[in-house]
Every structure is written in structure tokens, then in C-alpha cells.
């Protein structure tokens, strides 16, 4: 029995007493890919990660790493390394000792341990820092030591639990790119937990969106953004305005949809004629001067200037809409009457509504 998946979950449930932290989880991760677990706080991301690492044991179901059923195997015996949110660097050991720790545990000969650890430190750009204590490094440097410590073991799977949440916005961007580069260079299978959707979109090969202990949707970043399967995903990944619509008829792969008088063609995504919901990205809503076109009439309630774009809240028959406008030269004051139309992209039917 062989499969090409590095990690596979089969019907995994984990309960803490009454609370089910994850429920009936099924997914598989291909070797060499970076997969992100994304979801709101408390949805079970960390639990899933810890189940892979063996720091929690499943209540039901099976976990496979490579070809092996590791369901009952303790963390020590799984070929998995983890980078913790708090870094978890051993405060009484130097950077070098920290990075060598796992290598020593696999009883490699001393020179080899040193050499590998040195390479690991170089990889994260900290080669001169071996003799320092973790407390003598900046937050970002500590984070890179934690990564090096996990990397040098060349594990079958590398796990990251919100590795960037302690860093400032600029550093986050840089470090996440570094992690992605390293991961691709070394071809490491990586599972990455975050609740920052932008981070997830930026680094992942695939994203698993979780909500309330189950998987809401799984797919490539673009797929999740453009074809969210339900209201939750559409709203969680990027902002979305959810509005009622009617599918008039199905025409090949497309459906003719009516949104308050506006007719557009959208991929039907398995839906049949009748009532349905549509998600509209704020960038895909166009505000024209009222009366110029046959759009939906509306009134601007709020307008704010954010440097590179304008944000509006618009009242109309569809309810309140959130709109992003990149034309920053002309800001419409609240109270202005406008006419609303949609761009041909960034609008999609939601199958599970």
C-alpha cells in the first residue's frame, strides 16, 4: 500500500471532554506542498496541527504520515518537526545547542551534528549567532532559530503554528517570503497555520479553510477566492457582499442570474433555477452617477479615504453594500445618489447557501 501523500487524515475526530475540537476530518497533503490551515479563532487549526505532530492523540479516525499509520505513535517517533508560535527555544541553551538538539537526539556523530546545524543557521542567515542565548536575539531572529531548529532534521513534514503572529507587519511579510523560499528550495512538505487570510493566499499551494471543527473548503488560493463554496468561505477569504439573486435558467456551463434587475452570466456551479445567493467582492461593485445607466439606485452612507483606495458603504435595495473604489481622485460625499453595477469578475454564485 503506497500513496503519494505526505499526510493523510481519515475521519479524524478529536474531542476534549464534551468539546469536539475537530470533527470527522478528511484531507490529504501532497509531498512537497505547502498547505495552510486557515480559519477563525477556535475552529480547530492548532488541534489539527498537533494531531499531525502527535502532541494530541485522535479520539477517532486514522492519521497517516508517508505510507505509515501513525495514529498511535507518540510525537517522538513521528518524523515531524514543528515551529511553535512562542518559538519554544530552550532558554538555557545557546542558539547552536538549540539547533543541534534534534540532531543529537537522532544520535548522529558529533562533527556531522555541528556541520548540519551550521548549515541550518546559514540557511536562515544567522551563521554568526551560534554562541548567543535566545534571550540575546530579536524576535525575528528567534523566530528564524526556531525554523532552523526544525529544518535541520529534514523532517518528512514541517509544521508551523502561526509563526508570524509575534512579528510586526513589515517583518511578517519578509519572513513569510523567506519561509516560502526555503520550503520550495528544499521541497519540504509543510503545514502552516494562520488566521490571516492574506498570509495564507500569499504562501500556500493549497488552503484548507476550517470553520467550527470541520473543513469548510479546500483548494488552491485562487479557487477559494473565486469560487467559494459557501457563505462562510466567501466572507472569510477576502470581503464579500452577500446578496439575494434569482437564477433564471441554465445555459451550458453558465447560469443567467438576475440581481435586482441586473442580468449577468455566472458559472452555474451545479445550481438549478430558483433563488440563490451571490457573493460580490467589494472591488467588483461599480458606482456610477445616478441615472447614467440602468443600475440599481443607491445612496452613499459613509465614505473613507485609505491612501490607496476609497471605501464606501452604500444603501440600496440589496441592503448595505461595502464597496472599494480605486479611483481616489474623486471622493463622493455621503448622501450622494449613485447607480450600482457589477464588474464581470469577482461575482460568484454560492452553492451551499
Amino acid at each position: 500500500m503506497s500513496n503519494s501523500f505526505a499526510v493523510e487524515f481519515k475521519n479524524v475526530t478529536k474531542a476534549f471532554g464534551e468539546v469536539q475540537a475537530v470533527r470527522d476530518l478528511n484531507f490529504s497533503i501532497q509531498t512537497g506542498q505547502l498547505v495552510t490551515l486557515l480559519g477563525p479563532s477556535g475552529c480547530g487549526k492548532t488541534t489539527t496541527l498537533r494531531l499531525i505532530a502527535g502532541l494530541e492523540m485522535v479520539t477517532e479516525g486514522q492519521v497517516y504520515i508517508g505510507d505509515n499509520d501513525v495514529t498511535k505513535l507518540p510525537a517522538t517517533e513521528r518524523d515531524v518537526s514543528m515551529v511553535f508560535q512562542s518559538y519554544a527555544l530552550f532558554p538555557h541553551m545557546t542558539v547552536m545547542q538549540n539547533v543541534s538538539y534534534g540532531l543529537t537526539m537522532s544520535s548522529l556523530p558529533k562533527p556531522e551534528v555541528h556541520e548540519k546545524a551550521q548549515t541550518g543557521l546559514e540557511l536562515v542567515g544567522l551563521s554568526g549567532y551560534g554562541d548567543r542565548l535566545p534571550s540575546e536575539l530579536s524576535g525575528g531572529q528567534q523566530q528564524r532559530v526556531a525554523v532552523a531548529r526544525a529544518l535541520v532534521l529534514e523532517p518528512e513534514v514541517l509544521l508551523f503554528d502561526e509563526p508570524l503572529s509575534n512579528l510586526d507587519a513589515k517583518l511578517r511579510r519578509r519572513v513569510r517570503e523567506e519561509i516560502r523560499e526555503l520550503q520550495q528550495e528544499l521541497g519540504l512538505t509543510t503545514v502552516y497555520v494562520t488566521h490571516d487570510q492574506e498570509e495564507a493566499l500569499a504562501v500556500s499551494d493549497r488552503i484548507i479553510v476550517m470553520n467550527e471543527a470541520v473543513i469548510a473548503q479546500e483548494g488552491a488560493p485562487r479557487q477559494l477566492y473565486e469560487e467559494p463554496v459557501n457563505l462562510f468561505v466567501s466572507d472569510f477569504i477576502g470581503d464579500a457582499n452577500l446578496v439575494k439573486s434569482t437564477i433564471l435558467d441554465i445555459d451550458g456551463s453558465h447560469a443567467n442570474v438576475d440581481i435586482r434587475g441586473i442580468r449577468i452570466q455566472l458559472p452555474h456551479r451545479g445550481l438549478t433555477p430558483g433563488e440563490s445567493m451571490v457573493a460580490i467582492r467589494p472591488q467588483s461593485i461599480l458606482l456610477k452617477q445616478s441615472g447614467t445607466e440602468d443600475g440599481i439606485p443607491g445612496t452613499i452612507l459613509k465614505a473613507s479615504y485609505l491612501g490607496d483606495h476609497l471605501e464606501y458603504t452604500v444603501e440600496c435595495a440589496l441592503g448595505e453594500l461595502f464597496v472599494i473604489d480605486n479611483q481616489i481622485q474623486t471622493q463622493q460625499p455621503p448622501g450622494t445618489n449613485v447607480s450600482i453595477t457589477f464588474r464581470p469578475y469577482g461575482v460568484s454564485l454560492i452553492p451551499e447557501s
Partner: protein
Amino acid sequence: MTTPSFSPETTPGFPGIFSKDNLNLKLWLGIAWLGFLILPWYAAYDGFWSFIWVTDGYPTFDEYSPGILQITMHDRWWLWPVALFLLLPLSALSWSKTDPRYALTLLFSGGLGFAFTLSQGFILGLHGWGWEFLGDVFGPTEQKQFGMGYGALLVCGGFLFMFTQGLAARGAIKGDVFVCGSIGFCIVLVAIFVFFPVGRILINSLQDDEGNYVFSLFLEKITSHSIWGLDCFSSNLSCGVAWNSLLMGVLVGLATTVLGLAFALLVTRTGMQAKGFVRTASLLPIITPPFVIGLALILLFGRAGAVNVFLEWAFGIPPSRWLYGLTGILIAQILAFTPIAFLVLIGVVEAVSPSMEEASQTLRASRWQTFWTVSLPLMRPGLANAFLLGFIESLADFGNPLVLGGQYEVLSTQIFFAIVGAQGDPGMAAVLAIVLLMFTLTAFYAQRRWLGKKSYATVTGKGDAGVHVRLPKRVAWMAYLTAAPFLIMSLVVYGMIIFGGFVETWGYKHNFTLKHYIAEFSLHWSEQYGLLWEGAAWNSFWTTLQISAISAPLTAGLGLLTAYILVRQKFWGKDIFEFLTMLSFAIPGTVIGVGYILAFNVPPIEITGTGVILVVCFIFRNMPTGIRAGIAAMSQLDPSLDEASLTLGAKSFTTLRRVLLPLLRPALVAALVFSFVRAMTAISAVIFLVSADYDMATSYILGRVEFGDYGLAIAYSSVLILVMLAAIGLIQLAVGKRELGRRESFEF
């Protein structure tokens, strides 16, 4: 790279005997077989370290034969199942850990093997049936057996760890073999050495002299007038021992708490000089055998004491016996136990978050109001703990009531006399022990109820920049006034302890002499025999050192291991386990002493009269402190440190050793020092367990006191205090400081 041992699909062929797979199982199976085939099954030899059996008829002699020969040569056929349960798990060696049969076989043979081996020991004893009713059911038996020896010990250990490995293979405790084993180990030990002796007391109190269960007799004893009588209210007779003890415990608990609080406040919240001095001085009574303070008090205030002699000389006031009785006990115990309250309270007083006090002040409360409405209520857990400790220590204290009690009888001394006294009534001792246990457990329960579920956590882990509010003037004065007499008294008492050893006969002849030291500790060099340890104290001195040195690391180790289990692991029944470990803290030493002689002077675990029982007793008496220290320290360490180590491929034992232990050094020092010092100074449980071969310093000194050799006793005590000071220094040197980052505010 790690070398993970995955399921058989990836490991070609079955694991060989010498492969690293199932190393643990092989180890314990090997040990168990060694115990069964080679080592003597019974403990018929005297002493754990006595090896006369090697040359004295082993292996064929009945008393020294290993298990296998006991079955085949000596007709002890009921040991056959042991062999069976040892054979079964051999098949597990060829299966991988993930194979369900592996776990099942180990659970089955380990669990049943352990249960069987232990119960056969209880069923058949030195004089045939272990319980009367078995004789009634099965008829009389000719068979008998001794207590369990090395062989049985190893086999039981083997079964236990096979069972826990079976559990781990089923995925219990995240499949961690070491942690599963540790939990099993701790549970079994606590059950045998805490639960079992206490249970024996309960059973014993229900029995009459012939061993029949007579409940009415129990009722009669436990409600007897000598325990609960209230004559002191109606006449000038004394009240029952229970009331006496209760009064003493409550008074001492209250006094030590108030004094401890006064000192803690003075040290942390005032500009008082000499803070370091108070802190160090507070350690002194802890390294003093408790009754030594009573002794010094006699030398001061007794009939022939310094004060009385002076009063008579100066004012012609005749000496009186006012010291003997409740007054004397109270003074001695307050002097002895206040430092414990101080140490508990100082941590709590320091931990009250300054920002809460500052918040209160910004809400327009005065310093006086802030103290009463915020600071003091936040110290509630500390106050409750300090009171509980003082109360239990006082009830359990044996030396001071014996030395100073006079006509004032308390439970701890009455228990002792019921066992060793002329009438020799162990049943009565058991009943008294139950009364004592009831008091302490009630206090324990009341404390928990009082604290309730409210959160008193004030150390939030966030940096607190605030400064503690100075004490309001009134409170500061109250504290000074409370503390000063105590300090003066302590200084005088310790002066006495130093000088008392150098005086011929206190109260009569005050010339300087070294004769007490010479009598106890003289060395003699003779051409013929070399160095001779002539002094009378050497024997008990070396025994005490040896026993304390053996038990201290074991106590600290077991305490920290238990703390690790309680803080870091989750398992079914953890609450009960925690309660049991706490229980041994709430049981007075006297009760433990009685329980131990009742439980361990008959097979299957027959260790009275050996050094082992002393070591074991110290371990379980002092472990709770190690646990507390460990829990406090470990809760401050982020669990992701251990998890990181685990995911890096280190086993949990390695993690404990390389990651946690270095960070726990302060707790380790505390646990080591405390258990060493407690072993050196303990008396209440020890007095029941010493034997001619294993006499302890404290019981030896107490013997001297009973003969009125105060000079000798005091001299010996001051030597003990010096030795303990040296040992504390050594321990600190050996364990070293915690190496942390140089940055002061450290964030994990």
C-alpha cells in the same frame, strides 16, 4: 534526521532481539525473568543490603531460593501462574507496537500478573492464611511464606511496566511509554505507602485484641471519655485529649499565621533594615529538631532554668512549674513553626500585584482601606495555607508535648504511649490516630471550601511595573509589635542552644566544659585497631546522615516527577491521584508511624526494623513539599518547550532531563534541602520506626532528654544544626544556579 520506527511494512522482517524496537519491553521482561529465575523470591535475609544469602545456601535453601526453585523444589505451587504471566508477553516481542495483539497481551499479562503476585502475598503469610476468614472457608493450611524479596520485587516491577507499556501502545498519554510508566509507578507507590498504611489503621481500629471485627468496641473507644471528656469546664480535671489537641492546634495555627504575616509584611512592605537577617534567621528553626526548642525553654524557664534561678536569687521568688503544660507547648511550637508560616506568606505577599493596589488607590481608597479591602483578601490563600500548615504541624508534633507537656495530654503523645506504653493497645492507638486524621482532614477540607473557586491569581505573566504600596502606619506598628518579642525570644533560645552544650549541668554548675561533646563525638586512635569511633552518638549520627542522604534525592526526584505528571499530563483519575498525594501531606507523622508499623511488619511487605522503612517513610512524608515546589516552578514554564523537544525527536525522559530539569534547578534545590533537613529533624513518625540497628539522631536525643541528660542532648543538636547548614551549602553548590538568558525580563 530521526530514525522513526514505523510499522512493519517499512521494517523488513521481524525485529531482531538486539534491535532497538521494543527496547523497553525487552528491558522489563528481562528484569522480571531475572527476578524470577535468579534472585531470592523472599526477603528472609535481614536488611535490604544484606547479602549473606549469596554464600549461605543459595540457591537451594528454602528461604533464599528464586521463584522457579520455590515452585519446583519447595512445593510453592501457587507461584505457577507467575511463570505463566511471564511467558505470555514473550510472544509480544515478535509483534510491532501498532499490532493490537501487542497491547492486549501486555495489558492482560502485566495487569493480571501484578494483581496475582500481590494478592498471593496477602493471602498467604508467615503463619498461614493472611486473613482469618480464608481459614474458615478453605480449612487450615500448612503452607506459609515470608515477605517479598528482590525476586518478587523485580517481577512486580516487570508486570507493572508491562501493563503501562500496554496502555501506552493503546495510545494512552499520547502513547508515551515513559510517562505511562511513571504514572503507574507513582500511583502504585502512593497506594502502597500512603493509602495502604492508612487503610490498615482503619481496619485495625475496628478489631479487638483477637483480631475480630467488633464495631461496638470501636464505637466505645472512639467516643470514650478520655478522648472527648469535657471535665475542664466543670471541674479542675483535664479535658479529653481530642479537645486538648484541637485547642493547641488552633492556637498555634493562628499565632504562627499572624506572626508569619507580620514578618512577611515587614520584610516586603517596609523600609525595615536587616531584611536579609530576618530571612536567614527564619531558616534556623527549620533546621532545628522541633523539640530542641522545648529543651532550650526548659533550660531557660524550667524549675532549674536560668530565669528561675535568677528570680530566686534576686527576689526570692520560688521556682514554679508554670512552663509545663499548654503554655510551654505553645511557646515552643510557635517558635518552631512560625518560620514555616513566614515562608508560605512571603511568597504570597510578594505576589499580590502592585497594580491592583495602585488601582485601588486611584479609586480613592486610603492606604488603610486598600490594605483591608484589597491586599489582605488577596492574601487569603496564603493565610489559609499558613494556618493549615501550623495546625497540622502542631497536631503532629510529638517532641515538644513530650518534653513540655506535663499533665497536658495530646493525641500525638497518647498514640505513642498506646503503642509503647505499659498497656500496649495498638487498637487504641489506631482509634486515636483516626481522631487526629479527622481533625487534619477536616481542616484541609475547610481550607479548600474557604478558598473556593475564586481566582486569586495575581501573577499574570505580564510585566508589572508598579511598586508595592507601603504599609499603612498603623499596620506597620502592629507588625513591629508582634514580631519583636518573637525575635528576642528566638535569639535567647538559640543562644541557649549554643551555650547549653558547653556547660556542665545547667542550673547547677555553670563552668565551661567540652565533656558533652567528648561523650558524644570522641574519636580514639589506637595502635591496635586504628581509628575508633568512641563517642556514643556516632552510630545514630551516621545512620541519620546515611538515611537522609539516601532519601533526599529520592524524595526530590519522586516529588518532581509527580509534579511533572500533575502539571503536564492529563489522564483519567488524575484528580484522585492528586488528592492521594495531598493526603500524605495532611496526615500527621504520628499517624503515618502507626500505619507503617501496622502495615509493614508482616508479609508480604515486611520492612519494619530495616533502614528501608525509614527511607520510605521520609520519601512519602516529605514528597508533597517537593510536589508543591515542582508544580509552582513548572507552571511557569511554557508547555511548548517540552512539546518542541518531543517533536525534535527527544523522548520524554530526555526532555525532562535536558530541558525541564535545568530550568527547574531552584525547585530542585528547595526539594533536596527540604527533604534532607526534614529527614534529619523528623521525630513524630520516626519514633515508631527506629530499631536497634537503625537508630536516628532525633530519637537518640529524645532518649537523652528523658534521662535528663540535657547537656548531651543540646550538644548533639547543635552538631546536627551545623551539619545541616553544611549540607545545604553543598546541595546549592552541587545543583548550581539556573542558567537563563542575561536579559532580565525573559519571555518564552
